[in-house]
């Protein structure tokens, strides 16, 4: 570029040309990568029957659903005695007023219980899944790899599949949901928390080792204090994710709002469907903001 047009000393000109050449090379390499990714995107569109035209031809149906969102059915969030027997209440479908609150609570409790059970197992396991604590000998390494593999296997199965497994194996109901959420929580929490342990400042551990403390003492007094803020932060995050999972799990009969959502949508009851989504949105917003506020305070 500028190199040839100037009166810089030859050494500098050579340097400038060299760097220019490298930058151009790097740029064409990046262009190649982006081009390759675009081809992948194009192929994906073909394989998934991606068809924006459907958005136009199906627009009347979408507008009807959207209409429901403008006129949500408030009756379903009111307790029975307040809702009265107006025709807005969807008694005619056999789902009484006030049901929404019950199911919303069930979703929250599924998430809470699942977070508790999953994390209870995940927290101790995280320590034996932390590279920096374990890979100090052949036995530790073996345990480390075994635990890591187990965690990966558990995480590779989506929460929804766990839910389906438990619904078929045990029965329809919130208990199946709790089990599915617990297992998912274990997978997520053990990954997040073990990585927090891996990121600790080793100097503090060395200082405690130098006092003659045994490994367990070192973990309790040197590692744990370093990771407690992350423990709380990751617990909150896991809970957030679990609320979402619990919402979805209802759709396969594992309790909670998702169950109602499927019912409403099968009856094409868009106003009630809309009301349910509004409740889910508010729930999520409240949880996300309050956990963000707590995180800010502890980290």
């Amino acid at each position, binding site marked *: *570029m*500028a190199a040839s047009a100037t009166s810089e000393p030859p050494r*500098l000109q050579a340097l*400038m040309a060299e*760097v220019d050449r490298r930058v151009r090379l790097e740029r064409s390499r990046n262009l190649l990568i982006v081009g390759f990714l675009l081809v992948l995107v194009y192929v994906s569109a073909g394989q998934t029957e991606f068809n924006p035209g459907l958005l136009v031809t199906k627009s009347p149906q979408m507008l009807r659903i959207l209409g429901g969102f403008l006129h949500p059915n408030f009756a379903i969030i009111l307790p029975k005695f307040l809702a009265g027997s107006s025709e807005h209440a969807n008694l005619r479908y056999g789902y009484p007023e006030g049901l929404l609150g019950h199911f919303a609570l069930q979703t929250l409790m599924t998430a809470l219980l699942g977070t508790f059970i999953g994390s209870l197992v995940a927290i101790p396991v995280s320590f034996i899944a932390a590279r920096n604590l374990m890979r100090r000998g052949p036995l530790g390494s073996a345990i480390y790899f075994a635990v890591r593999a187990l965690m990966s296997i558990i995480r590779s199965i989506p929460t929804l599949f766990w839910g389906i497994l438990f619904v078929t194996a045990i029965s329809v109901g919130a208990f199946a949901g709790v089990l599915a959420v617990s297992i998912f929580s274990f997978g997520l929490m053990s990954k997040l928390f073990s990585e927090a342990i891996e990121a600790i400042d080793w100097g503090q551990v060395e200082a405690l080792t130098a006092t003659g403390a045994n490994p367990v003492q070192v973990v309790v007094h040197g590692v744990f204090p370093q990771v407690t803020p992350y423990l709380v932060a990751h617990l909150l995050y896991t809970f957030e994710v679990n609320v979402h999972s619990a919402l979805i799990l209802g759709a396969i009969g594992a309790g909670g709002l998702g169950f109602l959502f499927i019912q409403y949508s099968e009856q094409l009851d868009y106003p009630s469907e809309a009301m349910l989504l509004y409740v889910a949105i508010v729930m999520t917003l409240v949880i996300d903001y309050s956990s963000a506020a707590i995180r800010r305070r502890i980290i």
Partner: protein
Amino acid sequence: MLRCVNRLNEPTAGRVLLEEAELTALRSGALRRARRRIAMIFQQFNLVRRSSVLKNVLTGRLGYQEGWRSILPSFPAADRLIAWRSLERLEIADKAGVRADSLSGGQQQRVAIARALAQEPEVILADEPVASLDPETAIVVMDYLRDINAGDGITVVCSIHHLELAKRYAHRIVAMRRGGLVYDGAPGELDEGAYRRIYGRLGYE
């Protein structure tokens, strides 16, 4: 205090003047144009660590660019030339292509000075520029700053804890203690009494 000059921090009281222009009264656009005239170097260098040395120095030209083109990663040829000359001036052009965080502390600070120089400023604010460097490298960096001050006519305002370095390099020393002025004068006139006023009853050295 230095950070109040280019208003990275807002002063709670008082004014900052640069040749009759009241910096503390400027609003966004005018403030950015004023900042262009006042380069800054930092104790922790504050290079964009993952970017190349050349790119870091080129960022010194950002204040001169207008419009949508300036958010693109490429810079005009004239700016590139200025950046190269600044690197050459700091004798670190050899490293132009490498990532900033692969350099030693002293080299990084030289790149930071090159970035400041690329700004073609009237003033360089140096906020503890050698506090993160070993004594030998500190001398090298201070030498560059002195040469830039003498050769390019750029005023260097340097905050520094090390009184020996201050005496060796400064034309004028201003000492502050607990928010108040305790010394303002030539380096040569710093005596035992001034030391005690600056550093309290412990004295110094």
